[in-house]
């Protein structure tokens, strides 16, 4: 039998909510702990040996020198580095301050699990794929796929600032299914058409500022790149 994969879980600048999602996988935790060799996980235990890792999960944005040092150190020791949470993937809320940057600005990120917080199901599927020796599947569709499959009325069409078409799916359209417009907490989809979304929202009577505040809240970096090109 091959050795259990050595796992480390780390947090940079963030609320630790994504690490908490793993701790909250109560029904699956024993199975996971049997399958992996959990080395470093400050949130869950006090003895945290640091060394070579097969997989590192890193939460949070890089906002200070110590974050960058930790990230580079983890990267140098890990075969696979996975960004967990929108702060790690996109810079998230810290990006708005102008100081927070995503992990991929500094090191190679092998897979990204976005979300604020991440979805338990996506995390578990990712762990299962890694145990099988595969990189997890990417979820390239926007929130609208799952939203339409759930037969929700379109909130963007109804005149709300719904970020669904711009946002990475995988949450099973959690908010629109409760009749709440998508806030975009999972970060940008693979192909966000910010220009069209802005034009639609401006037609619905929203100001440029209102639109920017919502669309750029979690995915500021993607919005700056794509969304500010037109008017």
């Amino acid at each position: 039998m091959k050795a259990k994969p050595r796992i480390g879980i780390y947090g940079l600048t963030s609320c630790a909510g994504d690490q908490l999602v793993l701790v909250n996988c109560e029904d699956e935790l024993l199975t996971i702990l049997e399958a992996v060799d959990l080395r470093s996980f400050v949130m869950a235990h006090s003895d945290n040996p640091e060394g070579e890792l097969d997989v590192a999960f890193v939460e949070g944005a890089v906002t200070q020198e110590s974050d960058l040092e930790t990230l580079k150190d983890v990267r140098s020791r890990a075969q696979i580095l996975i960004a967990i949470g929108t702060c790690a993937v996109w810079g998230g809320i810290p990006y708005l301050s102008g100081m927070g940057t995503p992990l991929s600005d500094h090191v190679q990120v092998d897979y990204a699990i976005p979300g604020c917080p991440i979805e338990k199901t996506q995390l578990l599927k990712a762990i299962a794929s890694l145990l099988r020796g595969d990189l997890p599947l990417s979820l390239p569709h926007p929130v609208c796929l799952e939203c339409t499959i759930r037969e929700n009325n379109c909130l963007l069409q109804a005149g709300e600032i719904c970020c669904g078409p711009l946002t990475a799916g995988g949450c099973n359209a959690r908010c629109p299914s409760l009749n709440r417009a998508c806030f975009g907490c999972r970060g940008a989809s693979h192909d966000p058409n910010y220009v069209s979304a802005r034009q639609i929202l401006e037609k619905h009577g929203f100001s440029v500022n209102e639109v920017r505040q919502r669309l750029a809240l979690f995915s500021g970096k993607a919005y700056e790149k794509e969304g500010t090109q037109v008017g």
Partner: protein
Amino acid sequence: MRTVVLPGSNLEEFLARLAVGHELIVPQKSGASISFAAYDPSSEVVVEYQRTLLPPKKFFLPPEEALFDFAPGEGFRQKPTSSERRILFGLHPCDIHGLRRLDQVFLEGYVDTYYQAQRDRTLIIGLSCLPDEMCFCNSMGTDLVTDHFDLFLTDLGDNYLVEIGSTEGNDLILDNEDLFAETSDILLRKYKVFLATRSNLFEQKLDTSGLSNILALEWDSSHWEETAKDCLACGRCSMTCPTCYCFTIFDEVNLDGASGSRCRRWTSCLYKNYALVAGGHNFRPSRGARLRQRIMHKHKDSVERHGISACVGCGRCQAHCAAGINFCQVLTSLRGESSESIVG
């Protein structure tokens, strides 16, 4: 074709009886939209509606389904499908035509056994409708059905004229004979009036003459990228289309890292990764190329392969587009451009 009459006041009882011994699916209110969903005695069946958000394809090609389980040492186990008889009630002609198109894809040539199992256990009871401003089934020749249903009900006020399309449909009448009456001349006249009246109600029109030829010529048109500037590439038009059947296949692995299920899930050619292949090449990197693919597949490729357009004129794609893209207008613009260039 044999026809009988169902007095409108007997419909409720007819459905209640059908629900015994069948899984019965009916159009119902779901939030602000209409949805095909399982009947129960408290269900409020909606007999007058424009279009459900998702078409009936969801019962034959589910949005996500496990095809088989796998485990080391055990091999593959195909997922069992229910064999319970099922009735889909209230399908409009466009949706019945939509199923015909799916049958061509999944049952002709290479048979998709998962689709076939769902299709074989299902009876179709159609229902007439009146168009709204997005409907253009009469342009697509899909406003009437002559086959692919078991019963078809046309609402003629106090009565439904019932066309019987199969022996199993006929059995449903025979089993409930007390609810039905014989057709009368007056009703047949009313049926003709209904058809004539309805054909005058269509506002949306699409000239389909030579459309596939024109599309072939307009491959390089600037219209594609121009229209795609508005396209959110959200895929809602594909999900709500009765004939969009693309799916992606993937494995869901269990936490033992070895066993799992092979699954398929709906996808859309509008998604950026759809034409991405190994090595990182993307055959349709721009939204314009992807929008063109969706329209070409409906109105050109399907005509070439099956002799018939894959568009059934239900209007869902344009009714549900948050960006307000009207596919009839896009096609009309393409035709306009080509006729000018021919004259010029």
